């Protein structure tokens, strides 16, 4: 069965691109355009992995990570942060909140992202 990946990203085009790439690589994808929707879909759809943007309308990615960490039913779902916040303080904060990896959008290609995803869910 294909692995299920949730993409939480408010920019429609970026979402489309990454969905396209993931589908092309054989993954199932679910999309969310803001933090609340993202958190709800983690709970309802139980994805195998979440690609999470940080700057989001409503509750932001850091808050999603915090709430996910506190909920034992979903705490174990791996998250790759995919953001353009590139400062070390942001990266450290993301990783401390339980993110498995932290990728800066402008520094990685869709191919790089797939590789990271593949490494986490084999």
């Amino acid at each position: 069965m294909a692995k299920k990946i949730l993409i939480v990203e408010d920019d429609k085009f970026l979402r489309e691109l990454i969905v396209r790439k993931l589908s092309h690589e054989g993954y199932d994808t679910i999309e969310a355009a803001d933090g609340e929707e993202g958190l709800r879909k983690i709970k309802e759809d139980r994805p195998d992995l979440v690609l999470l943007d940080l700057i989001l309308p409503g509750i932001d990615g850091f808050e999603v990570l915090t709430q996910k960490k506190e909920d034992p039913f979903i705490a174990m779902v791996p998250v790759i942060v995919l953001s353009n916040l590139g400062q070390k303080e942001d990266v450290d904060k993301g990783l401390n909140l339980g993110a498995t990896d932290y990728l800066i959008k402008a520094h990685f290609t869709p191919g790089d992202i797939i590789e990271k995803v593949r490494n986490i869910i084999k």
Partner: protein
Amino acid sequence: MSKITNESAPVAVENARNFADQTKEVEILEADLAAADDKSREIAESFEKQIKEQARELRAKIKESEDSRVALMNMLEDMEDLRRRAEEEKEKTLAIIANFSDGLMFFDAEENLELVNSRMEVYFEIPKGAGSKIVGKKIADLGVVPALKPLVELLAKESKPVFRKELFMSEKAVFEVSLSDISGFHGKIGSLLIAHDITREKSVERMKTEFVSIAAHQLRTPISAIKWTLRMILDGDLGPINSEQRDFLEKTYKSNERMIVLINDLLNVTRIEEGRLIFDLALVDMGKIAQSLAVSYIDIAKQKNINIEIEDSRGAALLEARVDVEKIKLVISNLIENAIKYTPAGGKIIVAAGEIGGNVEVAVRDTGMGIPASQYERIFTKYFRGANAVKMETEGTGLGLFIAKNIVESHGGKIWFESVEGRGATFFFTIPKPSSPAGGEKTNVA
């Protein structure tokens, strides 16, 4: 004046004799008289002469004293004039100080506060009447007025002359403070403290920095979209493309990568301007960082037929320093990338690390185009690019060395270069070693 007596014969003889005698006597007397007369005339003359002499002297003296009286009067008048002028000057000076658009404090030669102008009182919100409380006090004692405490603290940290030090009181009160000695013809008169209001400049600067920061952040999302799209097309995710299309898209991709670098540089500049460039200091081995970075550039340099060599003069010593690793890596990368950019094919780059006088020193030496002497001074300024650099390599933001300088200086270090135009350049930077080895601290090797 002779006198003739009328007498008879014998008597007459006698008389005649007597007369003769008398005549003689008279003659003698006359002669005497004449002599006396002469004498008295002489005396009178000499007396007169003397008197005249004395009168002349007296007149001369009178004239002299008259002259000196006039001179004295003139002098008095001049003095009065000078005094009035001095008074006017003093009033003028006081009026200038009082109405000056900067806050001023004047300290006398003994460093006691002599004058505070009203602008100063307004700037520092010195309560009415408190002014007299601080007059006569030394700088260190001005804190009796709480409003002046930040100023006292700032000045305690600086040594004179203080030049344009920023004093942040609040969002609505930022000053540039200068303090310097004032000297007259006869040495030090005192010192003058100037507080210049830069609140508006600061807020404009902050807005500009915020704008650049937000703009750069906002640009990252669409630029990421472009990058991902181009990459996916180039990777064939969206179907096959022909070689001409590939060629163009590759160039577009590279162009976009440059834009990403530019945006990162701009963000770093805004961080420098916001004073939040450096955080997260860790004790690391700078030699290892320099080495591993140099190694990571070997392949890129080879594509341009440039050799990168690593020189390690430290021996067994650890080149430890307390640094923000990410930022220091940025400095070294900037220097190596510049060296690769501005060195023609066949050239050589040497990356060296060592310890010199309590500092860790990293040097990047190249055999490139070098820096024209006329541009030495501007090489570390923002957006500056050497004329020869612009000609040879159109890429580059002019921000790399500016960022590097700020990072190094934030660590208390120094950055400089040596260059011969046409033969190459060596960029050095130092980071002070921790004064005492930090016990038990783990060494991060990046």
